[in-house]
């Protein structure tokens, strides 16, 4: 009788809980959003969550959804915690989500093997497993517009240009400051390969997640090693701390280049010391686009947005969330065209993602002309390896300082394919791709 209290409760729950995850309704497009508005990474998570939500809400308010079908938006709080993320996935799965966005490399790694079993497309936009770009191995996983390896190669290419040619990297020292988790370690194999190939020396500065707000020891080492350039893969409070510490040790800010995750709020606290800090990006910052103005009219002014302050709309991470929703919306639209009916299924949306082609004309139509470079995915290429650019912090806002340029596609692609094969070898038996290729005609 001792356990009966607990298990009796559990048994009662057994009857109650299965009813709670809302079942799929055919007259809605179900898009769950995995967000984190709580926890140590909330600073980065909140603007992304707002951007994702507001764009979809705008489509609902302005156009009545996509192709005339309303979007059902449901947020699930992950706290950037892998266990909670998996719990979120299990709770939304009975509703047949059209696309799942894990918004954490850790959660993405957990969900990748399940995607092809559950037939749910996973969109890990510019994060997650780089090798997932190989669509022949990972038919259900997408990481457009570029993988972390593309990003790392682009930064190296940019540094090479600064030095007057990639061959001049020989003998240079490049420091790599990263969050010591799956996310930060992702580009290391590529950086190590490049270090050998181009003859630069790579020094590593791992930052453990639980002490990411205290990086004095890492920056002490940076001051000792004096790397010619610093590359950063940070997230949440780590970015803000790194910028502050870099300013404190007087590291030349224009030689400090980050991947695309720092937001304005990460850079501002460092004050004038942060001027010149550079960041790779794949979309524009700012709110002067018609589509974003529509968000203001249809969502923010109506009080449907969770954005606290009007000035937050158009910031880097807000726009990042917007791109994520833009890709989902365009994939659904493509799927509706491909299959000729508006109530698409997850499998059909997967086809839509594979046939995705966001051209310059289409961007203009959406009201985002010049917001990002055209993005084309295919059955083989799930990342798109789109063009990127470098922007610089001028004390108040981000300034675009380079033209759009492509990552080192010809170098990265074979490495991606090789890594995909390694992943398959390590995870035997890995299912063969069994879905036909969907090409937009």
């Amino acid at each position, binding site marked *: *009788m001792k356990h009966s209290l*607990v*298990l009796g409760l559990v048994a009662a729950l057994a009857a109650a809980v299965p009813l709670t995850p809302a079942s799929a309704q055919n007259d809605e497009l179900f898009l769950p959003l995995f967000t984190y508005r709580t926890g140590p990474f909330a600073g980065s998570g909140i603007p992304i969550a707002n951007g994702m939500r507001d764009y979809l809400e705008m489509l609902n308010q302005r156009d009545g959804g996509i192709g005339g079908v309303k979007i059902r938006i449901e947020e699930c709080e992950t706290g950037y915690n*892998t266990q909670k993320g998996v*719990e979120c996935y299990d709770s939304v799965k009975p509703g047949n989500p059209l696309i799942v966005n894990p918004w954490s490399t850790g959660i993405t790694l957990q969900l990748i*093997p399940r995607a092809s079993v559950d037939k749910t497309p996973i969109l890990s936009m510019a994060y997650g497993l780089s090798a997932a770009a190989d669509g022949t191995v990972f038919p259900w996983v997408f990481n457009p517009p570029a993988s972390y390896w593309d990003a790392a190669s682009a930064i190296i290419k940019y540094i090479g240009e600064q030095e007057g040619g990639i061959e001049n990297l020989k003998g240079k020292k490049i420091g790599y400051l990263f969050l010591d*988790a799956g996310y930060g370690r992702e580009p290391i194999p590529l950086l190590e390969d490049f270090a050998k190939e181009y003859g630069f020396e790579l020094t590593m500065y791992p930052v453990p997640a639980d002490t990411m707000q205290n990086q004095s020891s890492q920056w002490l080492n940076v001051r000792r090693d004096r790397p010619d350039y610093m590359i950063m893969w940070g997230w949440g409070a780590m970015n803000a701390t790194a910028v502050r510490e870099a300013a404190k040790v007087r590291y030349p800010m224009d030689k400090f280049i980050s991947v695309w995750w720092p937001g304005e709020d990460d850079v501002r606290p460092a004050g004038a010391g942060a001027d010149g800090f550079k960041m790779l990006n794949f979309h524009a910052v700012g709110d002067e686009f018609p589509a974003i103005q529509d968000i203001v009219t249809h969502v923010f002014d109506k009080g449907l947005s969770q954005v606290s302050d009007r000035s937050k709309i158009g910031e880097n991470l807000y726009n990042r969330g917007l791109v994520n929703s833009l890709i989902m919306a365009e994939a659904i639209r493509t799927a509706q065209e491909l299959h000729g009916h508006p109530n698409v299924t997850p499998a059909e949306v997967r086809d839509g993602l594979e046939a995705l082609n966001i051209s310059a004309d289409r961007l203009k139509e959406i009201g985002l002309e010049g917001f990002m470079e055209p993005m084309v995915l295919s059955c083989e290429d799930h990342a798109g390896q789109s063009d990127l650019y470098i922007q610089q912090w001028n004390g108040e806002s981000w300034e675009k300082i380079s033209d759009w340029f492509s990552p080192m596609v010809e170098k990265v692609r074979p490495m991606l394919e090789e890594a995909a094969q390694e992943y398959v070898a390590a995870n035997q038996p890995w299912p063969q791709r069994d879905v036909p290729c969907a090409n937009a005609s």
Partner: protein
Amino acid sequence: MFYREAGQFKTSYAADQAAFPLLEDRIGIAILLLVAVIAIPLLASNFFLNTIMIPFLIFALATIGLNILTGYCGQLSLGTGAFMGVGAYACYKLTTTFPDINIIVWILASGIFSAGIGVLFGLPSLRIKGFYLAVATLAAQFFLEWCFIRVPWLYNNNASGAIEVPTRTLAGIAITGPTADPLTRYFTVLVIVSVLTLLIGNLIRGRIGRTWMMIRDMDIAAELIGVRPLAAKLSAFAVSSFVCGVAGAMFVFLWLGAAEPSSFNIRLSFQILFMVILGGLGSMAGSFMGAAFIFILPIVIRMLPAALDLDIGAATAEQLNFMIVGALIIAILIVEPHGLARLWAVFRQKLRVWPFPY
């Protein structure tokens, strides 16, 4: 009235020493097992199995593991998360090196590795006690977590630094990996947890368990009547870490499907310690109750707004969750410092004497 002991005569020593001497207890356990084996698989959805039952059972086993050490032997440990991690990484290494041997064998064998590491870090317990020992086990937590990050051999040089669970089968049915049905995994977990609970329960009732409790109650007195502290303390560390290791291997292989080092961080250790304290130190049933309270309650609270059609937003629900669970923990510990198990014991006593309380 409900718990009538009158008329239940014990006519042999065996009957007197049984694990459940009362008929009512035996009926209760039988009902519980029937619910777990028949009712839950028939009624529960995959979500319920995956998100509630499987982790609940695994956490209950880990709680039993820590309870052996802290509740029965009186040695405070903050390294539970790391010992679970040792089990998980050992199981990963074993099954990737010898893929042909059945995964259940490896899940159980990984406990042996964890036991070894546990004994190693238990050695200081012979000299230090209480808070000082807690700090020593905390060192184990940090050191082992550091190993999971810094020793690439442990995760087969995976670029992501995470361990991923390959598909393994038993008699042709997948029990681990993405293709494994939640029901199959549930039964696997249920069998392992039930068998280990039974074994540990009997171990504690026997000579070994009694030496642990003697050490806990007063180590000098125990020494004087012939208990060897070395053997008693180290065996408690070994058995405790074995159980935690098995729980850790199941945690990754039968629940999460992949794990990063941060899955085994200090928060997991604290979570399990809270389960032990809230459930009741030195109680097997309490381990299950504590695990249920700490693990299942937040999930239920998270789902309540949706079930009641309240639109308060995922983040607000999460904040409320922290507040409610925190307040309840404090409230329960004020009402009953000995945990839920004691609460249940009090309730049972009331049932025994009802309707004539004295």
